[in-house]
């Protein structure tokens, strides 16, 4: 009997002593953590995509709490609603950041860009790019092995079997930039989503001279410079035979789309133009599958005014 009593008392004594020691040790080595970090993390979408530039939502929360000015920091997944929630926790005012979306700048479909050889190596764009220029005559375009689709964590991309190009589902795209990093040819770009998702961009990254580019791909930018002259807002620049539209300057007037002789400039989600559509068929363009309604509209819009200015290919 007494053995049991002694055992219980001894264990209690050890427990109390250990508790006292632990209490003081915990006091001494206490790590202060801002409670707001947990709150901010709670508000973030927990996608851990890295689109903000930080390794995961926790790291972004820490950075947000420690930053003096969070106006440059943005969670592409959560967008304005999440950032304003974060702002209210941290006492910052949040200006609505322009939402962006990934855009595939290549329209080298099997039809537009005929294959000149066949690749049968390891199915990875990075490996193919390290070996050679790709299956077509265009050394800049999409290699079509879908590394961007593998990189997407949000199911916002798929490879279109018919065109051989990746397609971005813009409703799902959170613009985290994973596909941009995955593409060895730097074809995908994050661009401003635009009002009502209306965007204009040059769907080509070919830096070759006009003749060479046109030979490799029917819808390549040939660097003729017509769009640069046409643009009333100085939004288009021509570097290395390739036009680029600055989405901050672009006012979506669509004048460049009409003058482009190769249809390399794409417009998305615009209502159909007022002019009578002609019957001339145009090359199939790649469009994100947003709402099927707008898709049909752009289909029509693309048919408007097909400028058949083949001669201009050689004027570079």
């Amino acid at each position: 009997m007494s053995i049991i009593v002694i055992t219980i008392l001894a264990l209690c004594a050890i427990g109390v002593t250990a508790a006292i020691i632990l209490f003081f040790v915990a006091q001494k080595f206490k790590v202060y953590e801002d409670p707001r970090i947990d709150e901010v993390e709670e508000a973030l979408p927990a996608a851990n995509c890295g689109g903000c530039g930080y390794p995961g939502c926790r790291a972004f929360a820490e950075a947000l709490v420690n930053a003096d000015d969070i106006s440059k920091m943005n969670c592409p997944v959560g967008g304005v609603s999440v950032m304003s929630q974060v702002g209210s926790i941290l006492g910052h005012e949040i200006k609505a950041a322009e939402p962006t979306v990934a855009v595939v700048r290549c329209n080298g479909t099997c039809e537009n860009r005929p294959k000149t050889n066949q690749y049968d190596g390891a199915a990875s764009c990075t490996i193919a790019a390290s070996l050679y220029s790709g299956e077509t005559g265009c050394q800049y375009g999409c290699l079509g092995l879908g590394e961007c689709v593998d990189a997407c964590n949000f199911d916002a991309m798929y490879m279109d079997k018919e065109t051989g190009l990746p397609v971005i589902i813009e409703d799902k795209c959170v613009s985290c930039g994973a596909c941009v990093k995955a593409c060895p040819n730097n074809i995908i770009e994050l661009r401003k989503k635009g009002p009502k998702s209306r965007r204009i961009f040059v769907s080509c990254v070919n830096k070759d001279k006009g003749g060479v580019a046109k030979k490799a791909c029917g819808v390549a930018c040939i660097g003729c410079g017509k769009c640069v002259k046409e643009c009333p807002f100085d939004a288009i620049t021509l570097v290395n035979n390739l036009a680029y539209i600055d989405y901050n300057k672009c006012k979506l007037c669509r004048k460049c789309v009409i003058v482009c002789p190769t249809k390399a400039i794409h417009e998305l989600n615009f209502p159909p133009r007022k002019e009578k559509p002609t019957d001339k068929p145009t090359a199939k363009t790649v469009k994100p599958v947003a709402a099927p309604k707008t898709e049909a509209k752009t289909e029509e819009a693309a048919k408007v005014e097909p400028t058949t200015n083949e001669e201009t290919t050689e004027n570079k």
Partner: protein
Amino acid sequence: MLKTFSLGGIHPAENKLSASSAIQVLPIPETVSIPISQHIGAPATPIVKKNDEVKVGQLIAKSSGFVSANIHSSVSGTVFKVDEIMDASGFRRTSIIIKVNGDEWMETIDRSADLVKEISASKEEIVKKIAEAGIVGLGGATFPAHVKLSVPPGKTAEVLIINAVECEPYLTSDHRVMLEKGDEVLVGTQILMKALGVNKAIIGIENNKPDAIAHLTSLAANYQGVEICPLKTQYPQGGEKQLISATIKREIPSGTLPIEVGAVVQNVGTALAVYEAIQKNKPLFERVATITGKSLKNPSNWKFRIGTQAKDLIDAAGGLPEDTGKIVGGGPMMGKALTTVDIPLTKGSSGLLLLPREEAVRKESKPCIRCGKCISVCPMGLEPFLLMVLADKKEYDRLESDAVMDCIECGSCSFTCPANRPLLDYIRLGKGKVGQIMRSRK
């Protein structure tokens, strides 16, 4: 028991179809396109412009650094343009395109066929002249030859090793050079010995070329310090490190060059080019290449002018066979598939291989079965299956510590893998990334 290297290796089917075909001279084409980057290192700088008249052997692009090489015109005629044209890997690279008119050589070049044995040039003159002649390693790596001959301070060269192994299946150009230009190769070897200040040279030849071994052994009796070393046939014996291990039993520490163990390796084709540059004053503007393939009408060896189209060589050998599935520039093990035949042959073109369709297909890759075959054949003692996974998972730190940079890209692992895994593809990718990281650290 014949000598060979100490670790790994494979023995693929030799298929030396063109071994008995004497070197023929390819007719000069109507135009040549000479790329300004035919070597490892900085591209040369063009010094000619449109409508300039050039002669055979005239300098047309100047070396733009220590690790770079001069480029000479291989034909006489008019410069048509300096433009970007497609190279073997499909990328556009600057080339000098010359329209051929006659065949007028520079007056300085000695065109006689007499053998000049006596070496009058001094050590420094030899290295200088080799650099001027734009000579690069003709085994395929195209490393500028003068760089290897300039021994860094603190190091001494003890032995020159001539690489006459030709371990790649199918290729026979070095074999034919040894049989037909044996004396020139040996004089070239002595010139290289003088340039390095060594009194011993070993010519390593695999024993699948017994006629070349016999021929050179009989000739070598007249040349002091040159020794012929027959080697067991084993791929990749033509690798610099493997050849040193096979001939002089020395291992090169990881991350260092052969000079660390006192050896300098040059290819047998380079020895011939050195002979021509020093004794005949002829810069490097032509070389010998093999055109081969099982269904090709006439597998043969040709001496061609640099800048000739691959198509011309194929036509000379009987035209493209119907069933061609892949055209490989170089040998089947380390060569690269071409995207088109409209590309110029360069200093590094040791051969063209036309693979029939059924042989060209890549088999479906299956999961690794952990058999360890890739480890047992790796001549560098690496673990290819592991390196592949690390490269795929972007574990660059571990790739570096697992010595991915030691990989010589011989492809023995991919060749032997029973699951047909694309081991080398991934390792090469990882090697590239680790190389980038290592350079950025400096």
